[in-house]
């Protein structure tokens, strides 16, 4: 069944996507503001992240304590997440709670009070989380890889949470300024999926956001990312750890790249299909070197990365990297087999009903559709878009990005520095 969501643009520019689904008597609300960490001020890495920790801790009408009682009393967990380009407020509530919950979330978006005591408490939490990250080889390897792939202050290379220093320096005025700069109705997409009539959802959104008036900020300018010129290997010694984490990657493509679906198929066959595609066959299944290994493609507004990640014994680091190199060489030289392409194509098409089974899953899909302007019938178009990709296009995608001689490799774990 096609999703066929309704799309409404309020006269202040806010976009509402609504889809009625009566599988359960619940509603998923997903509010996305185009205000991600790429909008952190210079030298203020982590400002958006801290804002995300405080934005739901008080509004112009309600205290943090009142909000806590309201949410907990309804059994609701509100999640606030930050990506490079989006800050999202997401929750699932029972259908009968939809109106009050949407209004509460709208207050958080439009008029957060950002109480100083809450900022101080959440700042401490964030600093503790950063300290935990500093003791986590998987996080350190990935963040260091991103910093190497996107150097020179590129927003994709900066830590979303920031550093202890930058977070400690953030003031309430910084948060107010960030909110003032990026939060506006024209930057908001509200998605409502579940046991609520789209007309009612529209009315509720119009009431919640209709009076918000503010000019739409210019989109955040993200520089193009240049591919690495040479191979680089970085070791982060963490001698208190037992296992090493490897992050191996390249800059890849933007989501708007016409070859996106060819890259998606290539990535699936290379490092995702079944238990990690070709990489899983080699590193986990044939050689038994890792509990996990996979690749991911994060096509974004600008050229996002294609990343391979694996957790291995320190004794197997070199062998695992050699296997990655070898699989890259084999894919670039020989391409996929027709069977591999067919399998990945069938999987990506066939997995859509699972991805779109729950209200939250549909809401996340629709946010992606709106953010990247994929078209309201993207769920209908996607199978044909995948079917139309040729073997030549998939192999060209592999050749365009994968090159072991230009790989950036970060190893964090009990390994001595070179």
């Amino acid at each position: 069944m096609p999703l066929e969501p309704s799309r409404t643009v309020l006269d202040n520019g806010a976009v509402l996507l609504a889809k009625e689904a009566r599988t359960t008597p619940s509603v998923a609300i997903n509010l996305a503001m185009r205000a991600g960490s790429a909008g952190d001020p210079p030298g203020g890495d982590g400002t958006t992240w801290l804002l995300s920790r405080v934005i739901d801790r008080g509004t112009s009408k309600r205290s943090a304590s009142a909000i806590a009682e309201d949410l907990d009393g309804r059994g609701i967990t509100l999640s606030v997440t930050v990506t490079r380009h989006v800050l999202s407020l997401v929750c699932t509530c029972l259908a009968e709670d939809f109106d009050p919950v949407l209004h509460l979330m709208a207050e958080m978006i439009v008029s957060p009070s950002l109480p100083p005591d809450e900022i101080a408490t959440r700042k401490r939490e964030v600093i503790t989380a950063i300290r935990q990250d500093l003791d986590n080889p998987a996080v350190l390897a990935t963040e260091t890889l991103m910093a190497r792939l996107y150097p020179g202050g590129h927003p994709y290379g900066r830590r979303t949470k920031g550093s202890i220093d930058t977070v400690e320096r953030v003031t309430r005025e910084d948060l107010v300024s960030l909110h003032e700069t990026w939060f506006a109705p024209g930057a908001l997409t509200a998605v409502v999926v579940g046991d609520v009539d789209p007309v009612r959802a529209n009315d509720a959104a119009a009431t919640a956001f209709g009076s918000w008036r503010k000019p739409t900020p210019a989109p955040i300018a993200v520089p193009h990312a240049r591919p690495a010129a040479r191979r680089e290997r970085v070791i982060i010694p963490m001698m208190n750890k037992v296992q090493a984490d490897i992050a191996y990657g390249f800059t890849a493509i933007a989501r708007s790249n016409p070859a996106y679906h060819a890259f998606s198929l290539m990535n699936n066959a290379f490092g995702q299909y079944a238990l990690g595609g070709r990489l899983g066959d080699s590193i986990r299944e044939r050689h038994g070197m890792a509990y996990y290994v996979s690749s991911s493609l994060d096509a974004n507004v600008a050229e996002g990365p294609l990343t391979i990640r694996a957790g291995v014994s320190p004794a197997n680091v070199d062998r695992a990297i050699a296997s990655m190199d070898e699989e890259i060489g084999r894919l670039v030289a020989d391409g996929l087999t027709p069977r591999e392409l067919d399998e990945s194509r069938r999987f990506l098409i066939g997995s859509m009903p699972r991805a779109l089974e729950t209200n939250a899953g549909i809401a996340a899909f629709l946010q992606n559709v709106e953010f990247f302007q994929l078209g309201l019938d993207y769920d209908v178009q996607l199978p044909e878009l995948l079917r139309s990709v040729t073997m030549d296009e998939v192999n060209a995608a592999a050749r365009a990005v994968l090159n072991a001689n230009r790989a950036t490799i970060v190893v964090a774990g009990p390994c001595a520095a070179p």
Partner: protein
Amino acid sequence: MGKAVRGRLTVSFHSGMGIYRFYNDLMRVGPASIRQTLLGNGLKVLVQAEHTAPLASVWCWYRVGSKDERPGLTGVSHWVEHMNFKGTTNIPRDQVKGIIEQFGGSWNGYTWIDQTTYLETASKDALDRMLFIESERMANCLYHPEDCESERSVIISELQGGENDPDQLLDQEVTATAFKAHPYGHPTIGWLSDLQSMTRDDLYDYYRRYYVPNNATLVVVGDVDPEETLRRVEHFFGGIRPGAAVTRRCSSEPEQTGERRLTIRKEGTTAYLKVAYHAPGVSEPGFFPLLIVDAVATGAKGLNLWSSFRVPPPQRSARLYRALVERGLASAVSGALIATEHPFLYTVSATVTAGTSLAAAEALLLEELDRVRQSGITDSELEKAKTQLRARLVFDTDSVTNIAHQLGYFETIGGIDLYTAALSKIAAVTVDDVAQVARQVLTPSNRTIGWFEPLPIV
């Protein structure tokens, strides 16, 4: 069921016992909607039609987990689970990959203290394929020696990955300290020395003993016709011969007579605190009142091991959150009371903020739990906890995969009635029940306290 529930939405959350049927409808499970059958070989089959998406989810559950392991073979249940993805007599090794993915499906499995389970969720057209895979897994796995060796490294890598996480390491040590007789004390992944010494024959013998139809439950939920599904199940599983009845010898954990403590001092950046109390199993009267205690202390989690812990609980007004997180002593606090066959643990964990001493965080945490033990909870706290739990139980069943998990999980640890009656049991809990279980469980002599004290990284 779907649309049928809508007309009942005016029923109040706070109307007590009368809501049992209503909420079971919301949860999309109930005795009337589940088709139950016992095949001639002892395989229990549960089928529930759920026509909300063109999908079917198949789970095959085995009543074998780490509590069934003897010393020297710890981790064998989990290793056997890994081996059962390595091809069968009729599914050659090179055809395992993609066998479900070609239907757009996903597959997985997990092992825990009471159970081992395998699942596939895919297009309903793949139902025969999923049943075939599970019947093969039950009867015909191969256990090639080279695959056993290769998987040894994978599992040791999994163990070491867990040890990289100080919180997980502390959890393992606290659990091992809390139990001195019952096998719930050893980690499901096993001790390293056992993983290094176990043989292919150890694995295969274990597989043959426990992977028999009379020790299993097959669950199918989705866009299926129950009668036709049962015919297909009979087709694939009916010819599998039953095994010898599984006998279980398991020490009971003696009553703990004094507080236990441990401290891990290791290089790290963050301090962690855990307090674990011996807690009732799911069939015992104190389980649901203690679930209320946990909701009041740290926010309600629901009862789905597969999905509940992926979404943080509603906890901002919870007692321990207010005491520890809002006052800046911890960046996170959580509680875990999981439905288990035998008495397990109720564990409260805190991530201590930089500059706060473990002793200070522990003192405040224990002070709050002691307040519950001495004074119980209020009527309004009870009602809020019930509301949260009811909502979480609704959210726990938002997909065919989750519904099927819940049916199989509870059948394996004591019967699906435990699950279908969960809402009525929660609704029936009184403040007196909560006070009683708090007095019994939250005592100093019943707890194990663990600290992870980070040493400076050299």
